[in-house]
């Protein structure tokens, strides 16, 4: 793919047409307008909410929970993944548990978390950690297991200690897998923060969206949804940019068709 991607004219045109349709339909049909206000009105609400600071507090709270949960999950899952990837016996010991818990929809853990941790921040961070742990863990295990034996032997014959082999060979060697896990985990973390805030929160964007819906203020509700969408988009974008920079070697390798 061309690194300097061209501006996607047809895509933007289709998008604008959709927004225009939304705007006119909502204005023309009062029955629809109750549920879906014109986009211009929603954007005006969003602007006002941001200017007055009424939503910034919620945004900050959600963002902090997201960052805490995501980073904590990444730290736990990568370390655990390396250990389980390296020590086959430990992995076979825990395999059943992992295979059982992994496919379970993570939101099902929310009641358990509320029961044990209450309704505060720690509950929301905990469910976020739990949910985005899995893709990172599974991918890290795979990454470590797929490292060439010769690569580790190379480290050994050069006299590297176990710690340096881990740091200089296993971690970079498994990094393409780990990064994949981290990218999947990113979207999951945002889903869980929003959901948990809807179920049990008094702050945060998830709470805000649901609260505005209950107050029949659909324009603000959509403003909240748009903000979450933008947040997700920007986090993903930031991740991709960071990945392109740090994993340049990998992208070149794939483009070459090398393994």
């Amino acid at each position: 793919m061309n690194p300097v991607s061209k501006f996607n004219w047809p895509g933007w045109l289709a998008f604008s047409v959709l927004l225009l349709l939304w705007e006119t339909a909502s204005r023309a049909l009062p029955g629809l307008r109750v549920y879906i206000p014109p986009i211009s009105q929603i954007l005006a609400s969003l602007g006002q909410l941001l200017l007055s600071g009424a939503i910034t507090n919620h945004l900050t709270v959600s963002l902090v929970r997201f960052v805490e949960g995501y980073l904590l999950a990444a730290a736990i899952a990568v370390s655990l993944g390396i250990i389980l990837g390296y020590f086959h016996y430990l992995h076979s010991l825990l395999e059943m548990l992992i295979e059982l818990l992994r496919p379970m929809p993570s939101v099902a853990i929310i009641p358990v978390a509320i029961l044990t941790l209450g309704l505060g921040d720690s509950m929301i961070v905990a469910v976020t950690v739990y949910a985005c742990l899995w893709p990172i863990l599974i991918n890290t295990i795979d990454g470590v297991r797929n490292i060439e034996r010769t690569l580790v032997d190379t480290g050994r014959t050069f006299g590297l200690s176990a710690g340096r082999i881990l740091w200089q060979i296993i971690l970079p060697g498994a990094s393409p897998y780990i990064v994949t896990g981290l990218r999947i985990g990113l979207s999951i973390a945002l889903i869980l923060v929003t959901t948990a805030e809807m179920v049990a929160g008094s702050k945060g964007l998830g709470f805000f969206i649901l609260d505005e819906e209950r107050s029949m203020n659909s324009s603000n509700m959509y403003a909240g949804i748009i903000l979450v969408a933008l947040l997700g988009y920007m986090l993903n974008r930031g991740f991709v940019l960071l990945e392109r920079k740090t994993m340049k070697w990998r992208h070149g390798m794939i483009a070459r068709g090398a393994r």
Partner: protein
Amino acid sequence: MPILEVQGLSKSYRQAGGEMTVAIGNISCRIEAGEFVSFVGPSGCGKTTLLMSIAGLLAPTSGRVIVKGQEVVGPPPNLVLLFQEYNKSLFAWRSVLGNVRFGLEARGDHSADAETKARALIDLVGLRGFENHYPWELSGGMQQRVAIARALAYEPEVLLMDEPFGSLDALTRLDLEDTLLRLWAELKTTILFITHDIEEAIYLSDRIWVLSRRPSEIVQELQIHFSRPRNQVTTRTEARFMEIRNDIYRRIANQDAP
């Protein structure tokens, strides 16, 4: 005192079926500092197992390896093993320069002129201009050159080479043989080389040990006296060269099939 000594080394494996396979029968040999010695033997004769055991990467079933008077229990600090599979042993996330620097870092050289040393080695293996390329951007021969430079950056006293040119095309192979001999003459490293290519062994070595089929043992030792520097055309066309080749070939071919 020999720089490397192998005493009664043997290695057996338990196969998946529970059956024991003896890969290495009973091998004893000694190498003097600065020598270029080769093991030559048929495919599947346990050559790699032998080298892995000498490198301290595999524990032998019995016998021992002594490097500079020290018994090998793990990878010895003054010895490095170069693998045949350069594409699996080079670090894909490091540039050519980064890979060669690894050899220096591994022995704790983080000095300011480590980069200068690495660049000099890259020059020496003929890769000037490719410092910032990644391994996967290079041909197989060039990748093995990077691996050689990386191994030499570690400044090993003994360099073990496991069929390093086995998966390269014939012309690249001849070219790399000469590069290796030039480096060996310059750096005075002891080299223990493994190959199944009889002529390659004769061309490179001071001494050759011919290995039998599994369980492998040394069946013949030969001193090679061709003058150095050797030449791909003149050395290989000497009458004595062909005599030695045929002699070794008969030794290997006339063994009873396992």
